[in-house]
């Protein structure tokens, strides 16, 4: 009995995420054609952009500022020991642009917006509001899904840019104002290290992450059933699936752009 439960528990751990990825793929396939359906509203897009962007900005700014300071604290000591203090700015910039800013904004948005999206759509589903849309002859995936996915694609890259800027300010504060690395050296090393493709890569990552969060948020929301408990479960799944997919895609995109796999971009 115990063995059977253990086996089925492990099985569920494998099957549930696969099911979620399946739902997300189906949802991705169904959202794109609906962008041109005219069943969604521009006002809703603006509202969602505000939700994604404006209301998440303070949190992103604060977290990025601290993250930038932490990166500087972690690098400055060792780099000075090896006489490499000229590289502190550049390494910090690469860390923020290539990895930390897109990842942070993606994960924070998954926790903050993705979960709320699933909870909102899930409770619309169990209170028959989705059915009510259908009775008005309106396609719920278009009406609810399209503005959210577009907002995700548009706003997460913007948040990413703000995160980079704030992270760099954090690094500057710790490296230059606190640890005494010359301001000119810091700037020069940033300019030396950063390439154009780092910026592109960073933006590509954040577009993909924004898409993942919004599509997963919607797919899990529409999959809700079984009352408040069901919605709670879906909300958790939404965050878990988003973060896993984000980290997976982070790896794939990094391999592509900086790892020299599949030709890379220049």
């Amino acid at each position: 009995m115990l063995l059977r439960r253990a086996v089925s528990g492990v099985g569920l751990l494998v099957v549930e995420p696969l099911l979620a990825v399946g739902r997300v793929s189906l949802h991705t396939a169904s959202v794109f054609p609906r962008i041109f359906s005219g069943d969604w509203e521009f006002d809703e897009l603006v509202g969602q952009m505000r939700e994604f962007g404006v209301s998440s900005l303070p949190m992103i700014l604060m977290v990025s500022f601290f993250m930038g300071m932490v990166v500087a604290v972690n690098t400055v000591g060792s780099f000075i020991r090896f006489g490499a203090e000229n590289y502190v700015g550049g390494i910090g910039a690469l860390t923020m642009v290539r990895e930390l800013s897109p990842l942070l904004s993606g994960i924070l948005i998954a926790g903050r917006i993705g979960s709320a999206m699933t909870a909102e759509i899930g409770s619309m589903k169990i209170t028959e509001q989705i059915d009510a849309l259908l009775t008005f002859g309106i396609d719920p995936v278009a009406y609810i899904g399209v503005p959210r996915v577009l907002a995700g694609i548009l706003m997460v890259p913007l948040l990413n840019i703000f995160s980079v800027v704030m992270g760099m300010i954090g690094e500057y504060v710790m490296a230059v104002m606190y640890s005494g690395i010359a301001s000119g050296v810091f700037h020069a090393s940033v300019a030396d290290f950063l390439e154009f493709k780092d910026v592109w890569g960073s933006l590509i990552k954040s577009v993909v992450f924004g898409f993942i969060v919004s599509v997963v948020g919607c797919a899990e929301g529409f999959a809700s059933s079984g009352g408040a408990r069901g919605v709670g479960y879906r909300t958790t799944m939404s965050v878990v699936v988003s973060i896993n997919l984000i980290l997976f895609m982070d790896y794939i995109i990094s391999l592509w752009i900086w790892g020299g796999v599949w030709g890379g971009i220049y």
Partner: protein
Amino acid sequence: MGRYILKLIEIVDLKKSFGNKEVLKGINLLIEAGKTTVILGPSGSGKTLLLRHIIGLVSPDSGKVLLDGVNIFDMSERELKRVRRRFGMVFQMGALFDSMTVADNVAFGLKRFTRLSSDEVMRRVSSMLELVGLSGTEMLYPDELSGGMKKRVAIARALAFEPDIVLFDEPTTGLDPISAANMDRLIYDVVNSTGVTAVVVTHDLESASFVADKVAMIYEGQIIQVGSMDEILMSENPIVKRFVEARERAVADGKRV
């Protein structure tokens, strides 16, 4: 305007199962225009499910729902969307869009399916809210309303864009006796003043006898009797009789069922 108005809904041998449980076991029913048809039955008899089939929210395992002879389950997604706009549906708990004000809820269909100016839309919203006795609630949000008020707003929303048919899902469930009686009167009044075809699903005999032109008694997924309210009350069918008597006992005890 002289627009085409639906005349007849025919439900033919409709069957639906969930897993091993057959919930609808071959429903046949005729719903005529301009009349109020009540689908009456105890909880769990499949009446709400039947209502959801009529508007195509659920697909049956077999059987048809014919709107003037055309089966809605043969329609393309596009046609189905268009045909659904001939219906207004009042959900059991209202199903108001909780991110919108009462006014936006009532205006939802109007803004999309009519060419009215925004002034005309607002005038129509006010008059619909007046009709359901909720003037002045335009700027409130659904969570600021009581259960009964939500249902009344839902009626205003369903009727605002002048559908041919309105479907009511358990309109009096969860209301106190006075509110329930008011709800019956409201349904009776709006149906008569607008001439709309109504289908009401309920387990409430009181409500059925107040609003019905025709009653279809449903039990365990089958229609067991169709007729006027009087015919139902006088019925010799043992199941109908039991249902009616249970209500009479409750009335004698001073309860409304």
